[in-house]
């Protein structure tokens, strides 16, 4: 097994997170940990607070209570742009690509943080601006190759079919070379082949770069096959946390999904 793939210690912990919008409680006192290099799935019925959980982790929402611990550092209030600097990238449930830009530009945007040249240099396309642009283009091409989207690299993403858009979005997240990758329903609305492709990409990324993944997925087959660790949410509460095998046999999870006989 690839040494990068050896599951390490907990690097990301959410502790006692509570989030509500007005009177609606999206998350109540959820805690769990994600270990380095693992694939962790968050599952649960619709409205369980899964996407809210990801939004809390990368600072889109600010919880009223609780905090994050990332690599031993306690973070009370995460900000979206800070999370990128910590090496946390994500994709969105409803594709959030930059529609007017080409696939290449979208993925290049994922590397914006690494660009050092000033805008004056960029205005003249001189010095660092030029060399960086070329160096980043090379890295982006590797991602394009990996995701097999060579043929559409210059097409504005608004014109791409859904499955390819999902891939470009994954590419954009990968371009930042994240340590933790949050995937919000990467396989929603895909057919079997597309799902298989996406699973392959996820496993390859995890295997090659050792990226820690937190993913939300509804397809139980996919979840059980990919995950090292599953967290189950229901009505904003964590009801189970464990290996796929443990989750499969957990009575509370079965009840949440299938309902309880009256």
């Amino acid at each position, binding site marked *: 097994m690839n040494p990068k793939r050896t599951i390490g210690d907990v690097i990301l912990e959410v502790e006692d997170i509570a989030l509500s919008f007005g009177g609606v409680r999206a998350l109540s006192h959820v805690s769990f940990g994600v270990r380095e290099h693992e694939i962790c799935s968050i599952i649960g019925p619709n409205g369980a607070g899964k996407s809210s959980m990801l939004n809390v982790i*990368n*600072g*889109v929402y600010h919880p009223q209570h609780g905090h994050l611990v990332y690599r031993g550092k306690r973070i009370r209030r995460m900000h*979206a*742009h800070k*999370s*990128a*600097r910590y090496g946390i*990238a*994500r994709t*969105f449930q409803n594709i*959030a*690509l*930059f*529609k*007017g*830009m080409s696939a290449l*530009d979208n993925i*290049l*945007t*994922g590397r*914006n*943080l690494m*660009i050092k*040249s000033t*805008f004056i240099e*960029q*205005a*003249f*396309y001189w010095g660092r*601006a*030029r060399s*960086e*642009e*070329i160096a980043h*283009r*090379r890295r982006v*091409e590797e991602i394009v190759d990996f995701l097999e989207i060579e043929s559409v690299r210059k097409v504005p993403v608004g014109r791409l079919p859904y499955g390819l858009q999902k891939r470009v979005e994954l590419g*954009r997240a990968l371009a*930042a070379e994240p340590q933790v990758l949050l995937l919000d329903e990467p396989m929603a609305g895909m057919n079997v082949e597309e799902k298989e492709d996406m699973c392959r990409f996820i496993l390859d990324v995890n295997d090659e770069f050792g990226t820690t993944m937190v993913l939300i997925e509804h397809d139980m087959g996919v979840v059980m096959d990919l995950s090292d660790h599953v967290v189950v949410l229901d009505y904003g509460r964590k009801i189970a946390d464990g290996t796929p095998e443990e989750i499969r046999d957990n009575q509370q999870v079965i009840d949440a999904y299938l309902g309880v006989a009256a």
Partner: protein
Amino acid sequence: MIYRECGQFKTSYGSDQAIFPIPQDRWGVMLALLIAFMVIPAIANEYWLGVILTPFLILALAALGLNILTGYCGQLSLGSAAFMAVGAFAAYNFELRLPGIPLLLDFVLAGLVAAGVGIIFGIPSLRIKGFYLAVATLAAQFFIEWSLTKFGWFSNYSSSGVITAQKMVILGYDFDTPLRKYLLVLSIVSVLALMAKNLVRSETGRAWMAVRDMDVAAEVIGIRIMKTKLMAFAVSSFYCGVAGALWAFAYLGTVDAQTFDLHRSFQILFMIIVGGMGSILGSFIGAAFIVLMPIFINLSAHALFGNAIRPDLLSNMELIVFGGLIIFFLIVEPLGLARLWQIAKEKLRLWPFPH
């Protein structure tokens, strides 16, 4: 056939990331510059140079500025003329209070002052979007117009509020004839347009477009929304400011705050709507359309009807035809004339073998 990329292979990322990766584009731009710098001065008369082409270029520069803000960064603004006014008055005051300041430095400083004012009026964009932001930028329009009239210092206490631009001299060379002014304006506009093109295809431009298209995702990638928006306001206002300085120095000679009223802001906005949002070329096409079309309509009406119709009727007809054309183009191509050009290029790639 003409616009064929077939058989053009790039062997390095450098050449594929070049400013005009396709040779036809490269030659097209060179040809356009060649015509603008060599052919037009040789054939155009003073009227064309001074009254039509110079204002066209200056307004294209202002449209380019607004396009950076609205087309690339997605922030609607109705204050472009006010930023032009800031540029014009700043350039005048720098010349007045720092005698002997080099002209180009004067224009750059004027642009920077406009950029500073732009940043201040861009602050509301951090909280509000779309139409509401447009209303907030209206405040810039009215406030700046008002304060330039109200405070005499800006116009050196001239009783009518009118400022007379100083002579344009670079290294002892006097830009006094329409031809020389045209060439100076053309040089400045060309350089600034190329810089804008470089900016929008680099990291800065990608950040702008990311904020325009999906601000939440942009922030998650690590783009600072505030910095990006204010940067767009600054660069946009810089361009408008330089355009305003040129408007005073190279075109009208004497201006007052009312030269840059709301009507002018709307005119610039229409340019980018007609020309194409998010396109450098579109700013020029739009400016050409808005500036040249009325003249063209006027000339052709005269040619068609001679003196058969009353002049007041004719001038109203001009407006009707002009308005009709804008509506027509927006229905045919809501993304602007630049988009039509892009479609034409895509077709030319295949023509004459479409299958």
